[in-house]
């Protein structure tokens, strides 16, 4: 892989800055996300060892990791398809995730659904549906239950900029804002919805402009700067938890792949890929941590090896897992008592 000169992270004054422990944790998870998704998309999928399609969030790792790090155990999250970091940080193992991608019984959906269409309420992760934006009112509903029961829990909801064109997105945000629900809406604006660039998706340059339509705060954040993500997310989550209602946080980033593994993204000007490669969130953060003396290049190498070993283990384990038995196909359409 060609090493490109990373664009240095701007030194800003943030209200919330992660301590060294949090920094290392976030780097580890960003690297783990990158490793698992590279393995899935660049190796396993091309080798025919994945069932169905593959969607990855390369280049956007800072968003899921820098936000999910703030989640309390009881908070509920409704991720979208490029938020692998959410799953890993919630404690869902790479083994189960790879098994999911391989359609095995040991995957999160026991082979019922593929790739990122997974969830587990034991970890408070709501599985998304392909109908983007549907998770917006659902997250509001979870938040509604928290207020009804007087619980200090929040709901987090992730979507791309394309999903914000859908009516469910609007209705969910409107409902959440009228009832001041403890939910935070994150927008992963990675500039393309499949082949549709922003200019064809909406007539505004920033999704955050829509925040005023709901009377809620909106913010634009460099989605490739994990410290900026960390700071903005903490403020929005604290806001929700303290009863002040929802916020809209837009992370600017770039989709460094096609829409899915089979899409070569030929419609994206190559210069854009080059520009955003220089802002790779992992390389930037590694450089910053080395400059700060928190890490050495050798340790980074080690971390990389650790992640690779975890994924090696996950792949080996997952491939040994059985597929679901055909008789299972009619199980659990309805409640069967558990």
């Amino acid at each position, binding site marked *: 892989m060609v090493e490109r000169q990373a664009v240095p992270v701007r030194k800003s004054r943030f209200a919330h800055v992660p301590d060294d422990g949090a920094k290392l944790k976030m780097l580890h998870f960003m690297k783990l996300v990158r490793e698992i998704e590279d393995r899935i998309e660049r190796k396993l999928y091309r080798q025919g060892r994945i069932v169905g399609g593959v969607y990855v969030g390369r280049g956007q790792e800072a968003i899921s990791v820098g936000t999910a790090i703030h989640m309390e155990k009881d908070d509920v999250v409704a991720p979208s398809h490029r938020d692998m970091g959410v799953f890993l940080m919630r404690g869902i193992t790479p083994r189960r995730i790879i098994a999911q991608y391989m359609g095995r019984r040991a995957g999160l959906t026991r082979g019922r659904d593929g790739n990122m269409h997974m969830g587990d309420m034991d970890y408070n992760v709501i599985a998304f549906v392909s109908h983007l934006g549907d998770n917006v009112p659902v997250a509001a509903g979870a938040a509604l239950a928290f207020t009804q029961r007087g619980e200090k829990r929040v709901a987090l909801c992730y979507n791309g900029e394309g999903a914000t064109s859908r009516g469910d997105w609007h209705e969910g945000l409107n409902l959440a804002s009228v009832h001041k629900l403890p939910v935070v809406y994150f927008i992963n604006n990675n500039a393309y919805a499949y082949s549709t660039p922003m200019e064809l*998706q909406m007539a505004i340059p920033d999704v955050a402009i829509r925040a005023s339509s709901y009377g809620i705060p909106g913010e634009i954040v460099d989605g490739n700067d994990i410290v900026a993500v960390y700071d903005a997310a903490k403020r929005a989550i604290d806001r929700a938890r303290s009863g002040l209602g929802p916020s809209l946080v837009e992370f600017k980033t770039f989709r460094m792949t096609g829409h899915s593994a089979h899409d070569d993204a030929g419609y994206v000007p190559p210069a854009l890929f080059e520009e955003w490669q220089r802002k790779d969130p992992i390389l930037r953060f590694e450089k910053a941590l080395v400059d700060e003396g928190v890490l050495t290049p050798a340790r980074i190498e080690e971390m990389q090896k650790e992640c690779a070993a975890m994924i090696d283990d996950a792949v080996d384990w997952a491939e040994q897992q059985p597929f679901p038995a055909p008789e299972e196909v009619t199980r659990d359409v309805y409640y069967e008592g558990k």
Partner: protein
Amino acid sequence: MSEYTVSAPASLTLDRTGYLELYYFMVLNRKLEERLGILYRQNKVVGGLYSSLGQEACSVGSAYALERGDFLAPMIRNLGAMLVRGVKPVDVMAQYCARAIGPTGGKDLNLHFGWIDRGIISPISMLAALVPVMAGIALEMKMKGKQNMAITYVGDGATSTTDFHEGMNFAAVQKVPLVVVVENNLWAYSTHVSRQANVVDLVVRAEGYGCYGEIVDGNNVLAVLDATRRARARCVAGGGPVMIEAKTFRRKGHAEHDDAGYVPQEQRAEWEKKDPIDAYRRLLLARGLVTGEPEITEIDAKITAILEDAANVALAAPFPDPSTLMENVYG
């Protein structure tokens, strides 16, 4: 407390005929709805009755800005707009009384009817469904280079819906000549606008779609007309859709059966003082646009006579023959 007055915006040009036509249509709107109310209490109206009492200026003022080839899609409280576009009282009465001569032959009720060749698209009950539809009509206008616009109406409640959002976004991205009049009459059935949305001015949502928006006094028919004309000019020139938020008030219940006891009496009283027709009448007299009270009375009497005739025709008409049941499901 000073009396509510209306005046013509500086940018408005209108001749005496225009001034009088606006009056005519607002009074026709109101008196037709009063007549329908009487028919309703006589059990001649079949189904629900919806009123636009107090909102006549919104419908009439905006529709008067339309030109030939423009398309209009009314909602349930836009009877005035349909009248401006050439719908006759007898059509409305026959429709409300479920008669065969009504514009849908008894298939649908109240203002759920349209006429493609008059540029009127029929609403459905699902609010804001018309927004994406009219965006499509406006798209064709843009594609064919027509110097026309499409206009539709939503209430404050309808701005909460999926179709409103998707329709506005699409219209804005495609930069089509669509004008959406948001009639903020403060109540969606029993839901006050503060429980409908977390903003005071719904027009702020225009920013969220990247289109131009403006607030207008919905009880000033001249202000509404002016705003709609300017909106028309802007969107026909390629400036993208326009959202006009008309501030007004729903003076009756959601429908005739709803006594709207949930509306505070003071609010009702406050808005009664801003009656759009009374204020406009005062302007006509004050500015000498009518020769005097007798000319007003003459217009009123003419309308009463038209409505009397219309009622007679409508009530004498037969109900639709059952054999027409299967017609027009397909072409």
